[in-house]
């Protein structure tokens, strides 16, 4: 790798997200926004075409369950389909990708 390649530095200023407090704020932000959106269903009349779309907070809990189910199923799938990186062919030495002029 040339000088522009990855190098590790220790004396740099901490990044924006290195602050634990900021991560916490983002996480709580997600919780609060979710709660607000869930109960927003009380505040307006939904125009639903399919019957289930009219159920209270449908898109919220459907989205949540869908994602948890997706991840758990994918995790289980790993046991069946995951293989070592050299399963099909041996790993090749890294090629020089920095083809910039």
């Amino acid at each position, binding site marked *: *790798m040339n000088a*522009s*390649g*990855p*190098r*590790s*530095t220790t004396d*740099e200023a901490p*990044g*924006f*997200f*290195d602050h634990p407090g900021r991560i916490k704020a983002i*996480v709580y932000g*997600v919780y609060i*926004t*979710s709660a607000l*959106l*869930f109960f*927003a*269903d009380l505040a*307006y009349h*939904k*125009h*639903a*075409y*399919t*019957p*289930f*779309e009219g159920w209270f*907070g449908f*898109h*919220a*809990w*459907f*989205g*949540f369950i*869908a*994602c*948890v189910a*997706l*991840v758990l*199923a*994918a995790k289980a*799938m*790993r046991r*069946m*389909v*995951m*293989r*070592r*990186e050299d399963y*099909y062919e041996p790993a*090749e030495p*890294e*090629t020089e*990708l*920095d*083809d*910039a*002029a």
Partner: protein
Amino acid sequence: MLPDINPGLILLVGGLLVPLVRGALRHVWLLGLPALALAVLIDLPHGVSGQVTIMGQTLETLRVDSLSFVFSLIFLIAALLMAVYALHLRDTMQHVAGMVYAGAAVAACLAGDLLTLFIYWELTAVASVFLIWARRTERAYRVGMRYLLIQVASGLLLLAGAAVQAHETGSLSFDHIGLDAPGGWLIFLAFGIKCAFPLLHNWLQDAYPEATVTGTVVLSAFTTKLAVYALARGYAGTEHLIWIGALMTAFPIFYAVIENDLRRVLAYSLNNQLGFMVVGIGIGTELALNGTAAHAFCHILYKALLFMSMGAVLLRVGTVNGSELGGLYKSMPWTTLFCVIGAASISAFPLFSGFVSKSMIISAAAKQAELWWVVAVLLFASAGVFHHSGIKIPYFAFFAHDSGKRCREAPMNMLIAMAIAAALCIGIGVYPAPLYALLPFAVDYAPYTLTHVMTQLQLLMFSALAFTVMMRTGIYPPELRSINLDSDWLYRRAAPALTASVAAFFLQLQAFARRGVNQAWRQLDTQVLSQARPGGRLVTSWRSGTLVWWATAVLGLIVLGGLLR
């Protein structure tokens, strides 16, 4: 006044001339070609022209109507963006391949008959494989071969279907075909391979992530959307497509969750996005077809943007494995920003382009009561898209734990290309009217209703909530250095293994047969032929008495036989 020529040919011929142009002039040439083609396309009168008669068949090489126009337009915009993105490259081969590939795709879109379509269809395959081979590794060579074989097979099916149609109906014209038409299934299968239908899909995830930094971006735009266009023209309203499309939206996202190579994650999500378009074609109403065209338009932009951002990471860091990245927002703040915009667009956040196009397809499904299950699948897929493309891609590349990798920001030309794509994503999302005006049918659709916005925000926010909870509790599967078996296992492992075992079976059979023959020969030799050798019973000197006895016995038998007759 611009000449009425095929804009695809401008890129095709101009692309082949790239090696003759050098230095700064080459930059002008590379940017000027798609810009000129774009201007020519916009200036073209709608209608059919460029007729050529070969062997009694009239070919329509240039057909401009509302459907072919919108696809050609976005193809040329993409070609221009990619020219900017690849401008720093010195590799002439990639410039030529990219330009010829884009030109062939545009010309295929504008083809009015199946034979012209076939020619450009195959040309896209042949030109694009060089974007994979340009990696110039053994592995890329093999991947390219697999890709090319499948693409050419699709073309041959198309040619066979066209031949059947021409034989039965006497016409090669490319209009609505349908499955019941002569050759209908053949052509359907040809389109289906290029559109990455389930089980015909894996060439995409196999090949795209193995192309060069810029090659993957170029590949992502054309081949599959050309197939979407062809399906929209030939098979609108074919019910099978609803099932196929729904399956396409759902199954790739499971792979996307566990895939480590982030460009391969994007390839899986590309497959999922195609599913939405295919569902729209299957529903076949004006709203659904408009949705498909609009979604293809938006999708090309945000998908290219996402691939561009991952390409920039690959260029600068040398890997796009999620397991090795993280914390890159410190080194590549602009790339991070553009990637997040692409992620918001593909996730269909309100005010981003995906929202105004995807909601058309879901609404079109929801308007037909019997398609409620499609709506459920599409909502599941929408949540899943946000999960793996919207969150996973930017999170593992730019945030997550700091990998300690530090690098330069992407080259300026790449940043400019990403900035333009990002601006278009936001522009279309905020003000969709110009896009709607381009669609094949008159648009009577309002994406920004209170219900749409609120329900979409609920869906997305709770997907984000699920991700947050699973990250915090450690349920979320970590990125691991690994590969996952997909349907390519069938032809990369199962078929060779099967061939090998069948071959081994026949070899064994042959050995067995040879042993049997040998043994039989030996037995014959020891029991019969040896009797004829010196010392054997057949060559001993018999006594005359025995001989006379045998001769009498034989004679007696003959006489007896004669008497009994």
